[in-house]
């Protein structure tokens, strides 16, 4: 309906109706008096401007009631690759160059006027590159390729255009109209939206990508409700404390100091009723995951768990910071290194309870591996397999079995427990020489495998998650599975569930 031609049918019909009515009116004229004429208008009546509805939003520069615009000491902020300020005095200096000051005769609102000013592209040149003083190189190719320019007036009005759609000569920054000085405005052979009065800013969308790092936020995912906190917010929390604590790595190195952070149980207690059976998964920025039980977090016996982001008064850097979980207290508690999650990004809490477990690995050494150790291994050596058996398929996430054999395949070296990292804890040579790997379930069921077929076999894993979730009760805590396309499936392999022990028989 924007532009509809007068419908011919309707027009002809309407004309016929009109003529018919005129004819009938003539017929009736003997009874009614002088004929009405629907065509001849009365002479034009012009309403004086002051009688017309004055729009209240328009700041009319000529209006006697409006504050007179500054025509002499104005300044325009320029933003682009660099920032600058175009002041009236500087503008006056530039005008002496004939190429910098042009004249355009333009019609607007029924009136033709002479506008004088500087082509906008010359002003853009001040900030479209690294030139910081005159002469500024005009980057015409960039103008042709197109970038956005936003012009803002003193009343807040902002309009943006792409330089690719405007000829450089068509838009000028005006300081004179019909010889009278005006506050700087943009005008030209361009859309009315680009006629901006009292320009205060011209911005080119050419700024370099912001170098500042995005602000870090610690994310809480509590029963799928997401909230996030900046370090600043955490430090302002009433749960912020500064107390000593330390952690010791598997290699025996201890790191400690005065940690600043929020008490985890109190902080999280704002969002849920933290119970001993609650499961809290800490997710690091590099994907590492560690699960704590609510019992761990609530236990304040030798110290409290904090989400620490300061050490000895300094903010933790991104690596290994920004946030680390650590236990602190007046007694300077110490924890195992793998329990302290560094680069913490997110805490995920779901309503189902935390289930702890441990398995034994025995052979030339004997170890009991707790849930956190296994989970740490899964995070570091994650392997996902698509397992199929008897027409049932599932995707399992876990750790290759052979890596756990490293705990018991020699009397000296175990994963993450030697200081000499040049020595691999896993003994490939021993595996190739051959030994039996027995895997026992909680109910005593045993599966026996040949180490030669387990050696280096990335497709044979102890699965800890099924289809992205914790294992169901009948498989928990670990299940032996393998990829459906595995090159080698050890003889005797069965998907043994509820694994409780691994024994190496030499």
């Amino acid at each position: 309906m924007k532009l509809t031609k007068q419908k011919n049918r309707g027009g002809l019909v309407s004309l016929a109706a009109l003529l018919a009515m005129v004819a009938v009116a003539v017929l009736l004229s003997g009874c009614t008096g002088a004929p009405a004429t629907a065509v001849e208008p009365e002479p034009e009546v012009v309403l004086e401007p002051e009688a017309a509805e004055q729009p209240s939003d328009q700041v009319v520069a000529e209006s006697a009631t409006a504050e007179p615009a500054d025509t002499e000491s104005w300044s325009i902020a320029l933003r682009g690759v660099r920032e600058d300020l175009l002041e009236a005095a500087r503008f006056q200096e530039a005008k002496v160059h004939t190429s910098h000051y042009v004249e355009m005769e333009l019609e607007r609102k029924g009136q033709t006027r002479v506008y004088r000013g500087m082509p906008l592209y010359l002003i853009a040149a001040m900030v479209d590159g690294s030139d910081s003083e005159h002469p500024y190189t005009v980057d015409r190719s960039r103008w042709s390729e197109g970038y956005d320019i936003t012009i803002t007036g003193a009343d807040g009005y902002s309009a943006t255009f792409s330089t690719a759609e405007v000829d450089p000569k068509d838009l000028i920054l005006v300081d004179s109209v019909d010889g009278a000085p005006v506050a700087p405005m943009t005008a030209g052979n361009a859309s009315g939206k680009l006629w901006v009065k009292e320009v205060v800013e011209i911005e080119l969308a050419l700024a370099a990508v912001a170098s500042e790092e995005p602000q870090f936020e610690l994310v809480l995912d509590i029963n799928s409700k997401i909230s996030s906190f900046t370090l600043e917010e955490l430090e302002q929390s009433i749960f912020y404390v500064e107390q000593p604590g330390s952690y010791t790595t598997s290699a025996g190195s201890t790191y400690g100091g005065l940690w600043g952070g929020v008490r985890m149980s109190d902080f999280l207690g704002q969002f849920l009723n933290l119970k001993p059976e609650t499961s809290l998964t800490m997710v690091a920025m590099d994907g590492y995951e560690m699960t704590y039980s609510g019992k761990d977090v609530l236990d304040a016996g030798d110290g409290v768990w904090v989400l620490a982001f300061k050490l000895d008064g300094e903010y933790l850097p991104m690596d290994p910071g920004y946030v680390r979980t650590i236990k602190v207290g007046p007694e300077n508690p110490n924890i195992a290194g793998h329990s302290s999650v560094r680069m913490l990004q997110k805490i995920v809490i779901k309503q189902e309870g935390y289930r702890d477990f441990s398995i034994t690995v025995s052979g030339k050494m004997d170890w009991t591996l707790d849930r956190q150790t296994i989970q740490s291994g899964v995070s570091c050596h994650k392997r996902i397999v698509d397992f199929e058996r008897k027409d049932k398929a599932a995707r399992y996430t876990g750790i290759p079995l052979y890596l756990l054999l490293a705990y018991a395949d020699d009397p000296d070296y175990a994963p993450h427990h030697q200081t000499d990292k040049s020595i691999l804890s896993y003994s490939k040579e021993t595996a190739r020489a051959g030994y039996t790997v027995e895997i026992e379930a909680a109910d005593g069921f045993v599966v026996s495998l040949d180490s030669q077929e387990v050696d280096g076999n990335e497709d044979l894993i102890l699965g800890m998650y099924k289809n992205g979730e914790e294992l169901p009760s009948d498989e928990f805590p670990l299940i032996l599975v393998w990829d459906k396309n595995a090159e080698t499936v050890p003889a005797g392999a069965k998907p043994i569930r509820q694994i409780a022990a691994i024994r190496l028989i030499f």
Partner: protein
Amino acid sequence: MSLKSFALTLVLALYTAFPSISLEIRLNGQLVQTWEDGELEKLSYLVPAGPGFSTGISLDEVLPLCASAYRLVISSNSERRILEAEELAENFASWYLATAGGGSWDLLIGQERLPDVRSIEILGEPLEEDQLEIWVSWEGIPLLKEQFRRFSNLHDVKIKVTEVPRIETKLISILRAGGRPPDVVMVQSDYLPALVQSRAIQSLDYLSFEALIPKARRSFSLDGKSWAVPFYFDCQLLFYNPRLLDEAPPLDWTLADMERLAQGVKIRFPGVAPMNWNAYSAYWLAAFQLGFGKQKLVEADGSIRIDDAATRTALSYLLDLQNRELLVVSEREAMISLFASEKVAMILSGSYSIPLFEELGIPFGVAAYPRIRADGRSLAPFLDFKGWAISRRTYSPILARRVIQYLGGIGTQQRFPAALSKLPVNQDAWKIMRQKNFYYSVLARSAETGVPVPTERAYGVYKNTMWKLLRFVFSGQMSVAEALKEGQRIIAAQLE
């Protein structure tokens, strides 16, 4: 039949059989549109006409979109009138064509009525902008899209409307990434500090807010500038289950009345909570602070004080209600669930809940917030405005403005807020609402005593800080004095 009767019958027959040309529209000398009487009638609604209302349509829906217009020539059968001014197009949304019967339309410009208009000629610049992207949120999206569709069809422009749950953060993310923002976004008051600081939106001081109710005019002001045009607002109300109260709360009731009704519930319905709301949120505390004597939530210097007597009294009062088992504190979802299952007699919620409760078939009544005492101040409900902000980097600033003017016009203001029991911002629409909205008296009272949600950053800081502390107060872990003292320290530190 006499010749005269025959002629009269013929005229009437012709007039009925063939529609007459009602209105011709010309732009810069060219005929661009012809409106027939029937077409205009189909689009019409109530428009202000003198002391009352008439069926009509606003001029911005009839005329082509113009970037600017400096002259209107209005012709009727008997005269021509010329209007000349700098920016006539800015007024089109508040000038109207009103039906005068018999296919005739009068033009209403303020108090002046120009009868039987047959043509309008505009001299000005047609609007070249023809597409817009708008982000919307909150309730009533399908109905809102219908309003945009109407505008789009009338003016043959393309409007892409996208529902975005969290507009503030998404807009800032897009700008940081160097992406193209939408032209118009729907905002609420507490979006302003972040959007203004990130230079996402432009100041709208060049627009007129005269047609709005007074409380709406400054509802999106920050640092002395207006940053959005209000569209509608919700107000906080007390909802009650009429089956559980001894009587309906009167319009002008007091806290003592409220407690008496609550006591009645406690005695008669032992398993039912007399009152329940999310008192952990400062959004619901503010009304009590203001009722108990606080003059303004945000001080003139942009700070917030919560260690004052009014806040202490307000929080102590709520704690006392809880201790007397007249108030149970729950978060919103639980509160709604309990109210729906008639386990709670009175709750505090926003007028946005009215359509939900109607849809659920829950028995409910609404009451305005009570006074502290019969001769005292009223608890001051928050007036939660939603409005339209224009992106600073829009390619279509004038089309954006025209759409916003249309949304604030009496047509949309009648159609959209009324259907959702929201409150219009257009003054004339309020007069129409009086006759059409079942809850008018309560809503009007709430609008009268209410205060707009603050736009200052301090309010956001205050809300976030109190969220943690109020839990400690209601759980008994902190006293009122301790919590307010600690809260003041935290707020002051964050605002430094």
